[in-house]
């Protein structure tokens, strides 16, 4: 359970400093402890010695340093999983989209990335005993593809109160990468205040690919992308929420056989995301999903279908 950052929580830290931190969006001790000092200075405007002190105190209170692996295992038990709507897709994800991690959905256009996101925005609001996370969902929509009417359709065909679902859904339209950074920064406050349990960014890379043109801009692009992803991962870990991001593919012309597409975002994207799922179009309304990188999940391929219910199991062939 996160500890709220209030005056008096950090011994010897002035009220004004706490207020500055809260204004910058740090409203829990965990978020302060997980933020680099340099970033605290940049975002709050406080002096570096104060930031070092605040960060040190927060870290001491939150993070005891090295702990036995058994304790880590115990902590993993707090982890929750959210159903995607398809039991097979859940199966390859180890039971669903997990909290405390970033799950990345990769695929070409029409491969079902947004459909999975929209289904998750419905299922995540269900109680844990029904496969959900029992909280609200925040969506950062960079491509203007997140349609509330489709969410209504998915909810209604699953027998879920659509109005309740829409009330628990927080959507932000994102127009450029700077806007994306602002929205990601505002998430930590939103997560605590609105009980958000799942954050969706659809798509993570779109604006970066269009705004940072040319090899000369590759380094700043990757740095900014890495920074966004690291903030999301920090948020996922400190607040124990699930983060789902979508990623595009790019064609590699020198591939003669097999799939010529590869995920965009390079190594930064690959390293930052915990689980990477590659999606491909299948016959009719079916799609194929394969875990291509994960510390705990095997590389298995399954077929699922996109229907009125959003995502569900495909019929046996």
């Amino acid at each position, binding site marked *: 359970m996160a500890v709220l950052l209030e005056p008096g929580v950090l011994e010897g830290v002035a009220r004004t400093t706490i207020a500055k931190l809260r204004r910058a969006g740090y409203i829990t001790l965990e978020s302060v402890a997980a933020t680099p000092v340099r970033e605290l200075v940049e975002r709050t405007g406080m002096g570096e010695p104060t930031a070092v002190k605040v960060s040190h105190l927060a870290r001491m209170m939150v993070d005891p340093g090295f702990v036995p692996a058994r304790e880590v295992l115990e902590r993993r038990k707090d982890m929750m999983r959210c159903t995607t709507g398809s039991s097979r897709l859940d199966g390859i994800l180890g039971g669903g989209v997990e909290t405390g991690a970033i799950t990345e959905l990769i695929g*070409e*256009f*029409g491969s079902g990335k*947004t459909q999975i996101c929209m289904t998750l*925005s419905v299922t995540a609001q269900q109680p844990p005993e029904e496969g959900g996370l029992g909280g609200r969902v*925040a969506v950062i929509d960079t*491509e*203007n*593809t*997140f*349609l*509330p*009417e*489709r*969410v*209504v*359709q998915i909810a209604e065909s699953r027998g879920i109160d659509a*109005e309740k*679902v*829409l*009330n*628990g*859904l*927080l*959507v*932000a*339209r*994102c*127009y*450029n990468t700077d*806007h994306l950074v*602002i*929205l990601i920064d*505002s998430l930590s*406050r*939103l997560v605590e205040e*609105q009980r958000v349990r799942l954050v969706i960014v659809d*798509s993570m890379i*779109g*604006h970066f*690919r*269009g*705004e940072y*043109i*040319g090899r000369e801009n590759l380094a700043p692009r990757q740095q900014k992308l890495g920074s966004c992803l690291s903030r999301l991962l920090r948020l996922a870990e400190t607040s124990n929420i699930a983060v789902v991001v979508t990623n*595009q*593919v*790019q*064609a590699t012309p020198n591939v003669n056989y097999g799939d*010529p*597409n590869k995920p965009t975002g390079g190594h930064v994207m690959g390293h930052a995301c915990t689980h990477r799922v590659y999606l491909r179009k299948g016959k009719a*309304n079916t799609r194929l999903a394969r875990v291509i990188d994960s510390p705990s999940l095997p590389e298995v391929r399954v077929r699922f279908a*996109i229907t009125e219910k959003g995502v569900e199991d495909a019929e046996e062939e």
Partner: protein
Amino acid sequence: MSGFTRGLDRFLSSLGEDALSTGCDRLDLLLGGLRPGRLYLVYGDPDPVEELLIHILVESLRAGGRAAYMLCGNYRVEKTLLNVEGLVRLLEESGLAAEDALKRVYVLCAFSADQQAGLIDEISDLLARDPEVRLVLVRDIAKLVTDDARSRSRAARSQELQGAALRLKQACAERNVPLVVSCRSRRGRGLLPMPEGGEFLRHLANVILYLHRSGRGAAYVRAHLLKHPAQVPRTVEYSLRRDVEVGRSTPPFRVSFEETVARLRKEFQKALVDRDRREAFEALVEAWSSELGAMSYAESLTLFDLMLLAAVVDNRSLIARLMKGFDDLRAEMGRLRERDAEG
């Protein structure tokens, strides 16, 4: 909530959004109209794509406000602009005063590579300057980078196009204007051709529509919906010509007649083994053929026509058989009379 809005508010505001018509009911049903802030990528055979863009333009002018039509190619290479004659004809058919409507269309085109490079800035400025612009149409977006003489690598061109397409979409999304972009098709790895412009443009587009001429005739177009956030990919056939009714097409009378005759021939195959019947049938077909001109007003052969045809064929056969019987009897009687006379 710093930029975040509740899904319910977004849903309610989307209900109040005016979706622009494409000028074709079937396409409107398929796409759910053209919604503000979305990018519609249309590609395929050049004629249907161009025809659809013009119809969308007319529909937007009918709905009020202004529209921007941007040609991405270099005029010095392309030598074509907006098809004004076709546009004026459509405007008049739609009951709009052509002169007044044309004043509400901004046409942007480039005469040099530099101007091509500045087209996106131009359209962004236009959207910022004139809030009455309710639609942006872009023809052949890939020509922004393929049609000029500047030499650069394929990767550089592709990146330039990415930047241009993203800025265009951002400008339209910020002003809540639907953006319809066309491009040419190229051979893909699958069954259908893919749009030019690379993977990024396909990701950026909210809706992708592939158009090609149908085998049924020049007026018919098949539209394949390949990407849509709320619709399952599917195919419909439509026609934008007002005198053509899709789904109730009438084949030419001669084709219909020949099909019917072929079917009758097959159905009455056994009966027509008889030589007399066959001759009678052929005579009838000839008679009916000569009546084709008079009958061309009929949509097709009715059931009564078919029954009459069958009855007449059979009657002619019966008559021929009876006549033959009479002739046989007459001959027989003649023979008997001769025998009596001899006896």
